[in-house]
């Protein structure tokens, strides 16, 4: 689960990493009080999960109340689904550092990444100045050792008070990484102020969903998602991505769904939604079809090739869903795997024409979406 900036900063603050004075607001009526706390100039930071907020104009520096009101309104009314704004003091910056921690699957290490060119996205840095990127690998059984922290700090070219403070931030960020079962924790930029104070200018924290059982759980709200459908399916636990094409995918298994997505694109078709009802969800055909029907898609394409996700159970679920939901668009099935013969009978009996070859099913869906008959 990806946290919003303000949530990540709360984690930073709790572990002793300085953050700018800031107030979270969800309506313009709260702005004045917030500004009273931060003073002017201040920064209005839209709390959405999309990257590149600066470029998209979703972060605004304002000098006074008039500017603040105007910009705040613009942000709340933008197309980006901005429901929350972090109102922050504008920090006087001397320097910016990039700092993050993630895992390295190859060496089975925690990996700290640092760069003296903060404020730039790491993807950009990786392309433009790979030699400036510092990587430090940490044995998860030993944890981050002080000598490694010092080495990172020296490689960043730091010294004196700033070296000490950033060393402390690195240590604390690592603690936060562990404590939160983080996939990624990032401070970019980490500000160094004129007074050599070290303050987290931004914050990213992505918590491993698999570790939810031992982590603080954040309530899943609409704000985390780009669309209502994605929000709704997340509540259901069904992986779902919204697109705006013609074909609703209702497939079992992430890899197979991705491949069907590819094949549709190869055939010149367009995808309305990616929906994966495999694994623990294979009995949720009804709910899956409901989600697909919310789209303006022209056809629903069902592809599975399951083992535990039994073909006959899925076929029954699909037939049941059709009976209940009476879908207004054609349905193409390509159901294989354990008990595929039984599945075939169930589908045929229900009046469907089951297919058994993925590509054939894809071609059919693309042609139907283009207006051909089923």
């Amino acid at each position: 689960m990806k946290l919003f900036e303000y949530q990540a900063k709360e984690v930073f603050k709790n572990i002793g990493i300085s953050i700018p004075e800031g107030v979270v607001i969800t309506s313009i009526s709260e702005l004045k009080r917030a500004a009273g706390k931060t003073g002017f100039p201040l920064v209005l930071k839209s709390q959405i999960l999309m990257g590149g907020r600066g470029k998209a104009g979703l972060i605004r520096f304002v000098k006074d109340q008039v500017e603040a009101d105007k910009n705040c309104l613009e942000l709340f009314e933008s197309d980006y689904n901005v429901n929350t704004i972090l109102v922050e003091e504008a920090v006087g910056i001397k320097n910016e550092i990039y700092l993050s921690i993630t895992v390295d699957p190859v060496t089975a290490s925690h990996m700290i990444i640092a760069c003296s060119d903060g404020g730039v996205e790491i993807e950009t840095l990786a392309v433009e100045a790979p030699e400036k990127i510092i990587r430090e690998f940490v044995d998860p059984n030993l944890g981050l050792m002080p000598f490694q922290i010092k080495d990172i700090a020296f490689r960043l070219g730091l010294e004196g008070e700033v070296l000490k403070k950033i060393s402390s931030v690195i240590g604390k960020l690592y603690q936060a990484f562990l404590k939160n079962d983080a996939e990624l924790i990032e401070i970019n930029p980490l500000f160094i102020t004129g007074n050599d104070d070290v303050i987290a200018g931004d914050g990213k924290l992505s918590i491993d969903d698999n570790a939810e059982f031992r982590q603080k759980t954040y309530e899943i709200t609409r704000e985390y998602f780009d669309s209502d459908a994605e929000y709704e399916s997340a509540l259901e636990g069904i992986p779902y991505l919204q697109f705006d094409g013609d074909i609703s995918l209702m497939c079992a298994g992430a890899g197979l769904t991705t491949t069907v997505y590819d094949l549709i694109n190869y055939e010149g078709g367009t995808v309305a939604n990616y929906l994966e009802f495999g694994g623990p969800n294979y009995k949720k055909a009804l709910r899956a079809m409901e989600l697909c029907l919310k789209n303006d898609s022209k056809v629903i394409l069902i592809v599975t090739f399951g083992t535990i996700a039994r073909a006959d159970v899925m076929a029954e679920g699909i037939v049941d869903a059709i009976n209940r939901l009476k879908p207004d668009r054609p349905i193409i099935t390509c159901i294989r795997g354990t008990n595929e013969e039984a599945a075939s009978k169930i589908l045929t009996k229900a009046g469907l024409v089951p297919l058994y070859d993925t590509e054939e099913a894809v071609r059919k869906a693309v042609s139907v979406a283009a207006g051909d008959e089923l």
Partner: protein
Amino acid sequence: MSIFIDEKTRVLVQGITGKEGKYWTEHMIGCGTTVVAGVTPGKEGQQIEGRTVYHSVRRALSKVEVEASMLFVPPMFTKDAVFEALDSGIKKIVTVADGIPLHDAIQIRRAALSVGALVIGGNTSGVISPGKAMMGFFPYWIERVYKPGRIGVMTRIGSLTNEVTAMIVKAGFGVSSLIGIGGDPVPGTRFAEMLPFYEADDKTDAVVIIGELGGSMEEECAEMKRDGLYTKPLVAFLGGRTAPVGKRMGHAGAIVSGGKGTVKDKIEAIESVGGKVAERPRFIGDLLKEVLGL
């Protein structure tokens, strides 16, 4: 010779008394696997499919010889179960658990590396040497998918494995050994680490890898080939060629990050060392014929 497992490999089942454990132990035996005992704490003395259940791996190993362990253990207990198997010196471990915490997975792989063990998974269907033995849950009874033969298969993607393997068989080939590396961001063992076994296997003529966007496992295979550590033909099918950047489409491991791990990168890496990449599952057969000179 088979990779990882054959009909003589003595297999322990951890979590044998659970619903999944029971069900798949029966199928593993049905497939030819030599299951010698099971483990479930607190259930010592029970019998599952005629195999004795022990409280712990140590207690099982004090009674029977074991070469490999199959884990049907929930994700949150998987780390403990893997370490328990490693503690007893078991060097081949398969875990099908889907949902192992990332930080546990890192420690599992670290431990496996440090003792030179092969931990396969999690989030995998396991391993199968068709016609001989299986650890995990493969629908080996679907003959048009799991026909014995001379093509090695490695996969990151459970749901695509049946699809691609069916195409290999449809083209007239069969499978020597199939290793499901698993779809997690940090699998216990990586493609490249299994390649030397296929290289040495006189029953394997070529290897097909089933990969997808994200990570660097396919690139590592290309490196092995470039460095001459793997010399047999290499064919790949890769999902997610047209996947939108930055979206997580399915597996947590399948996300392009830091500009790395696009399918385009992977194709270039594989083709640059003489490997072949099939655009569609259907093309796998033709490519195999081409690289094998058939």
